[in-house]
């Protein structure tokens, strides 16, 4: 067996953590692909933090944290929608402020109870090693829903990423499908808070899909790359956590981010080596 498989086969909690991480990785690669393509990173970040007061409030009231997270995410979507439609400011400013306000509200609620300090760390960074069977089942259901909805909405989502106006003209209302997309982001964030936590799920949304965008020339392979990188990150992160006794969720996200920057450096190097073959009027490549 050796040190690479034995931790997962000998410990049920490690196997559960691995399965949960795989499910999170699949959901995050699908949703993260559209977050990256549509430049929704900031909204994703806002959602990831918007769930904090919901979770804290639910725990304060003795309700399941996941219900509170859902309420927080929905409030955040409604707020972002309202603000981007009404505000004459750039939506960055308004969403940024909403995001900080929700974070502050979360901390205020948590500060009401001193016993929450440990919970707060759990909410922000997850407790993947403590994944229960119910948690695993919830994650499986959520990942299935994300997969099914993304499959059903593949065409409007692609049109939306290409050009929202083309989606409208083609008979796929961009506002409706944008909202569906936000709900998928919210679902992924809400369900993942138990495993990688609300702060770190954002890394799982961006890093694998971002690396996938650099490696793939089509959307489906981009998702496949994202899922693969997420799963490898989960495995390596859990392994490192087991052998070196470091925080599991954070290590997983750290590995994913490291892979992203390795891919970024690699593709930059490749582009630089092939620059001579490009046409002079070809546009610049890659994200800014």
């Amino acid at each position, binding site marked *: 067996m050796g040190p690479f498989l034995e931790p997962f086969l000998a410990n049920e909690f490690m196997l559960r953590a691995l399965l949960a991480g795989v499910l999170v990785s699949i959901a995050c690669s699908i949703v993260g692909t559209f977050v990256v393509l549509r430049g929704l990173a900031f909204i994703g970040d806002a959602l990831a933090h918007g769930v904090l007061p919901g979770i804290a409030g639910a725990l304060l009231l003795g309700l399941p944290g996941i219900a509170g997270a859902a309420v927080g995410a929905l409030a955040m979507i409604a707020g972002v929608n309202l603000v981007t439609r009404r505000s004459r400011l750039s939506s960055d400013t308004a969403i940024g402020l909403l995001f900080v306000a929700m974070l502050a509200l979360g901390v205020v609620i948590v500060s009401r109870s001193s016993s929450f300090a440990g919970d707060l760390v759990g909410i922000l960074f997850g407790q993947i090693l403590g994944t229960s069977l119910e948690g695993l089942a919830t994650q499986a259901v959520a990942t299935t829903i994300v997969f099914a909805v993304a499959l*059903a909405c593949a065409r*409007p989502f*692609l049109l939306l990423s290409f050009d929202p106006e083309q989606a409208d003209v083609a008979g796929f209302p961009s506002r409706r499908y944008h909202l569906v997309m936000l709900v998928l982001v919210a679902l992924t964030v809400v369900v993942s808070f138990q495993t990688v936590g609300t702060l770190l799920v954002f890394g799982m949304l961006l890093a694998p899909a971002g690396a996938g965008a650099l490696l793939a020339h*089509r959307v489906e392979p981009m998702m496949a790359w994202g899922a693969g990188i997420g799963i490898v990150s989960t495995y390596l992160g859990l392994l490192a956590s087991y052998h070196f006794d470091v925080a599991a969720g954070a290590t997983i996200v750290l590995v994913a981010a490291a892979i992203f920057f390795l891919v970024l450096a690699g593709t930059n190097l490749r582009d630089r080596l092939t620059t001579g073959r490009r046409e002079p009027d070809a546009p610049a490549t890659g994200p800014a």
Partner: protein
Amino acid sequence: MSAPGAGAPVIEARGLAVGYGGVALVPGIDLAVAARSSLALVGTNGSGKSTLLRTFVGLLPVVGGTLEVLGTRPGGAPRRLAYVGQFHASGFVLPLRAVDVVRMGRYPDLGLFGRMRSEDHDLVAAAMARMGVAGLARSPLGSLSGGQQQRVYLAQALARRADLIILDEPTSGLDAGGRELYLQAFAAELARGAAIVTATHDISEAVEYDQVMLLARRVVALGPGAEVLTADRLLDTFGILLRDPHAEHAQRFVVAEVTHGHPQVIDVGPEVLP
């Protein structure tokens, strides 16, 4: 999908006002565009061309009057409509191949779940061949030049096999070869039965259209190209900036003149003006 009869107008506007946020930019538009016919909107930047096109496709609500497109409200018949807007290069290059973009032209007919059949693949391949980008089908969109991308977007519109094709400055960025292919495709689509509406700066091209509408935040003239495109009217259309203190582009004045029997647009700097 068969073309509607030549008698039924594809676009019918009465007293139409178009604009943004309920404020009319161009009021009082009366217009009928029949199947198998073409209409060119000619005017300066800010004259209302794109606003009118965006209202036709349902991206902007009608501000006043009535407008019927393809026998229904604007945007109510997506399967019979193709639109290519003015593209702004996004900072992020999407992981799409050229052929994936042209395939999007089939989405309105396929809906959410319909499978691409061999007819759809044939239409996509034919559209790419007509715009001379068949060889680029598997190339990433981001690796194409601006002119090549414009050809791909036009191929997407052709792949739709629409009854009404609306194009906002379709030849911008095209080289001479691309322009020639576009004009051939344009003629073929008309012959197939489609109506075509475009916005253009190119007056020599507009002469070829069945109808030309001169726009300067009002309808200066509407009629057959050869009748409408007179020096006086062009001066009225393009000279409007001289009299408009609110024009954003007032540092650049545009007038029209007739050379070799064809009206031309020339730019003149403010130093030439009295």
